[in-house]
């Protein structure tokens, strides 16, 4: 009974809280297990700074992916866009263009790629799956074409560019080595802040959630669905290009396939985050938790010397388990 639900006793509200926080609790249990197994290394500041840096690229892609997933869409092309952005920047560096030119062109490619995705989805009316599957292949092909298939590395990549991934704010010393708060982490946090503000505090974000809930109702309530969708895809493309630059900086090279792994992990992170919300909507802070879960599992399981293939099976199982239990409990209420 609809009317009955308004009068839920507090006991049930408590259960609802528990259901929503299941993924968070699971995460804390994993952290506790890792801490017990690696008492001297896991729950330490250097290790967590280390994890934060490792997940920073995935985090940026996943935060950006959250924007389109709020509308119920997704973007499969983020990984190949990241590769393409890295290649474009590296080629310009090789041509001895200034750092800023390479970075701006790469980010511009992200916006244009997103514009193409947005036009296809919003105005041509192709489903996001097909449209972005198509552009995934196009961006990847372009990355191969521009780079001639080779890895651009070594002296072609300026030290200031690759140095970014290794610098940070000094925040103390550990074992007489300076402890840095990584620049990559700071960048990911800035992106997080911007996207949180955008999605949760602006009229734009509010309208995106309305589109995700009921696009037709949103349209009839005066939301310019097509335009906002187009912009969302552009922002996601921009995020993917940013992550591509971060990746290129971290590996001090650009390779036409290097971003490929980011897409599925990013979608997985958003899905993990969605289990935290009552209505199963993506929120960027939930995505952050999803990214951390993936990163912490990688880090902790490596330290515990769990076979890398077992690790992948575990991660897949955890994603399915978390999403299943959250959707089951939603259905059973």
């Amino acid at each position: 009974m609809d009317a009955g639900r308004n009068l839920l006793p507090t006991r049930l509200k408590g259960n609802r809280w528990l259901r929503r926080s299941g993924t968070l609790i699971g995460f804390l249990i994993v952290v506790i297990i890792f801490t017990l197994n690696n008492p001297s290394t896991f729950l330490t500041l250097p290790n967590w700074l280390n994890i934060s840096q490792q997940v920073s690229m995935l985090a940026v892609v996943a935060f950006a992916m959250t924007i389109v997933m709020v509308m119920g869409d997704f973007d499969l092309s983020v990984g190949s866009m990241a590769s393409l952005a890295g290649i474009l920047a590296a080629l310009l560096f090789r041509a001895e263009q200034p750092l800023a030119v390479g970075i701006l062109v790469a980010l511009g490619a992200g916006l244009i790629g997103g514009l193409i995705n947005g036009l296809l989805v919003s105005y041509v009316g192709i489903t996001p799956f097909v449209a972005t599957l198509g552009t995934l292949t196009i961006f990847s092909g372009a990355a191969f074409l521009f780079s001639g298939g080779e890895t651009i590395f070594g002296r072609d990549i300026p030290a200031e560019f690759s140095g970014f991934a290794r610098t940070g704010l000094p925040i103390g010393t550990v074992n007489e080595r300076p402890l840095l708060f990584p620049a990559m982490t700071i960048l990911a946090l800035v992106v997080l802040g911007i996207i949180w503000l955008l999605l949760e505090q602006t009229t734009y974000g509010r309208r995106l959630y309305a589109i995700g809930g009921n696009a037709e109702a949103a349209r009839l309530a005066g939301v310019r669905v097509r335009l906002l969708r187009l912009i969302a895809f552009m922002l996601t493309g921009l995020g993917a290009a940013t992550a591509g630059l971060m990746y290129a900086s971290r590996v001090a090279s650009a390779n036409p396939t290097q971003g490929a792994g980011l897409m599925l992990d990013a979608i997985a992170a958003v899905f993990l985050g969605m289990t935290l919300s009552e209505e199963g909507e993506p929120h960027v802070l939930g995505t952050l938790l999803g990214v951390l879960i993936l990163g912490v599992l990688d880090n902790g399981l490596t330290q515990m010397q769990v076979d890398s293939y077992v690790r992948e099976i575990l991660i897949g199982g955890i994603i399915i388990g978390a999403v299943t239990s959250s959707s089951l409990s939603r259905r059973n209420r």
Partner: protein
Amino acid sequence: MRRLSVVLAVLALLLIGGGVLAQDAPTVAVITPYLAQPGTQFVVEGFQTAAEGTGWTVNVIDTAGDVAAVISRIEDVVNQGVDAIVINVDPAQVAAGLEVASAAGIPVFGMDAGSDPLLVTNVTSNGYAMAAETATYVADRIGGAGRVVMFVFDPFPPVQKRGIIADTIFANNPDIEVIDRITPDVADGGIADSRAKMEAVLAANPEPGSISAVWAAWDQPALGALQAIEAAGRQNEGIVIVGIDANPQALDAIAAGGNFEASVAQDFAGIGAATADAVARVLAGETINQRVIYVPTVLVTGANVAEFLGD
């Protein structure tokens, strides 16, 4: 409470993994993005076999093609405090990780990787020499004249340098024309896509004798090309196929006496063993001055293939 059972499963697996850590022997982490490839498997197995007698704990980590993840895993094992790290990836791409290891004073060894000032040493076959062996074999075999198809893979530096040597040798023979320089899609290991690409080349060059040889930078494309030639019924045109690495399938093909005539056997197990030896020397306090340690290779043809088939 379905989630609970997932957590319990994780817990159980973690405890199994955790048991290994209890020992006090030196721990060596072997990190590679390429474990799915046969060559890498032999190298790693060679390393593990050589390490068996030493009492080390060897932790093999595969990042399934993700190079940035290699950096992350290096950071993780540095944090864990391993005694030595062995990598099988281009060191220039993981420099960020090497710097972390170096700052922590943990030695890093290249195993068929590439040389880098941050590596103690790199143990490998001489890629230039291998490519020179097969390319000159082709040039000699077709009498310095003919039309050649090349299969290359420039994104991976060790394979890329093979292509460059072959380019040079073919270019030095004015009557050899490279009619196609193909980069196959290696997602499936390289055979299937190479076969498809070769079929296209065969279709474009239908006259018998219009293709003299196929030079492949590693064995899988050579095998794909062989399949395409046989499927097209053109195995009697005298097209010479050569590969590099001498993997078991390639050895079988050479032994069968068809178009696949030659490959170069890297001593993968030897590379692994030599790396283990280098690690042992450094752990014992010795300093290694050689930036690169080369392990010899052998050209495999119908004449000597029997020696390799036994392995």
